[in-house]
């Protein structure tokens, strides 16, 4: 068991509860998503949980036509491409996520900077299903 509580498992539990949980440094105020237990700005390990509001802007976008096996298993691929992107949150951090609400045959129609909001998607993972982070364009 890790002594630090800001783990992948704790983050994933938040996603499962449809809460976007990051961490904030009590010494310098830096906010992290995904959460981390050691502040990379000041190296303090005094961190607290912070729930992010999930509102942000699209920084980069792609449509993926040659999919990894996990996304093939979820029904995506050459005939059904999906979008992935990077979103900058109002709370500060930027994060990689699946992007929803894009016509995958016309991704060029989506201007970067478009506002988007967090959404939680269930996809197959291992034996069961898991909640994954996504953002939907507004």
């Amino acid at each position, binding site marked *: 068991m890790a002594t630090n509580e800001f783990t992948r498992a704790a983050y994933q539990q938040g996603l499962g509860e449809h809460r976007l949980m990051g961490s904030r440094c009590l010494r310098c105020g830096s906010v992290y998503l995904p959460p981390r237990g050691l502040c*990379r700005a000041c190296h303090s390990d005094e961190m607290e949980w912070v729930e992010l509001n999930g509102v942000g802007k699209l920084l*980069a976008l*792609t*449509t993926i036509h040659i999919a*990894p096996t*996990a996304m093939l298993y979820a029904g995506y691929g050459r005939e059904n491409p999906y979008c*992935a992107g990077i979103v900058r949150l109002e709370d500060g*951090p930027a994060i*990689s996520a699946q992007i929803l609400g894009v016509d995958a045959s016309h991704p060029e129609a989506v201007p970067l900077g478009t506002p988007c909001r967090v959404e939680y998607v269930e996809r197959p993972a291992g034996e069961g299903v898991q909640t994954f982070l996504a953002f939907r364009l507004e």
Partner: protein
Amino acid sequence: MNRPIKNSRKLSRDVAIVGAGMSKFGAFPGISSRDLFLDAFQEMRLSVDRGFDPREIEALYIGNFSSDIFEGQGHTAAILADWTGLTPRPATRVEDACASSGVALRQGILAVASGLYDIVLVGGIEKMTDMPTSQVTDALATASDTLYEVPAGFTFPGFYAAMATAYMHAYGASVESFMRVGLKNHENGALNEKAQFGATIRQVMDKKIAGALAKGRPAPQWEDELAFLKDERANPVIAWPMRLFDCSPISDGATALLLVSAEIARNFSEAPLYVVGSGQASDAALHDRDTLTALCSAQLAAREAYQMAGVSARDIKIAEVHDCFTIAEIIATEDLGFFPAGQGYRAAEEGLTSRQGSKPVNTSGGLKSKGHPVGASGAGQVVEVWKQMRGEAGARQVAGTLDLALTHNVGGTGQTSVVHIFERR
């Protein structure tokens, strides 16, 4: 946020490359990475002008990303030591994703510069083509953050495609800008007998037309190369806006270099390449950076290498850069200071990076056309500058005195970058 990098780093003694070789790059069913490494090793031996006894080699540094996944074989460096007859010399595998053998080179340089060894073998191997593409995609994705990037559905073409959209948005580049890089690198690769794709885009088009006619089908009609590259059937999207011909291939290959301390270099070679600059830096996951249109790690690695060498970007005559995707070459030419930020795509469009241009880049064909056996690619870049600087590059030889050359090798999306500068005296 970070303490500024030390202004000037120096090697405690000088190091030279006195031999360089590579296997052919390509898809070789049934051939293992160790078989390919023997080709590279033997070609390297032949390239040592004054000859040497392999038993003089004191240590090996081998770049290898993931033979564990690709071949079900870990612990590869000791095996290569055995198969090249170098047991019991210390053999160390270096893994920094696609920068593995660029970093292995740096480790070899540091080992010689430290005074511990005088003669070191640096190599790289990767055997990627025995797996279906989806599994190769998965294996390569382990070079990114599997906890927080891969769950978004990102693949490596996807990461660079995302950088491409950010770059287009910031600077006004178009998909044609990227296609110009692919066209140029295929022109160069067509002149490289070791390249996986030894064909220009025009030759690829002619082959497709001949193939259709041979099957009694109507021949496809393309007005020119750009029309071919914009044809979804001929050049499908892998991750928009990156199409098939924007992506380096899945490859098998091996590379080998012989490093010695500078004071004994002339005992081995009539025309050694002296290592005058070496720099390396790391970075966070792509989403966790201040910019998506440059690799800060490459900028820092380049700065360290330029300062060590006491030269600037304009002094570099030729460069092999990490064009795993066409957008990556454009960004590399900016990170290295060859062109200002946001101008790399214009330079590519204007032909400045062609063999006849002011700053020839990827005369080997680059990873795009030569092939990208990831763990072998960094040392493979040195094989090209070895040939060019010694005037041995044949039909693709760049004219003029090539006294300074640079190699730029990237791991992942820039979590690792390593830059080297070589001088011909």
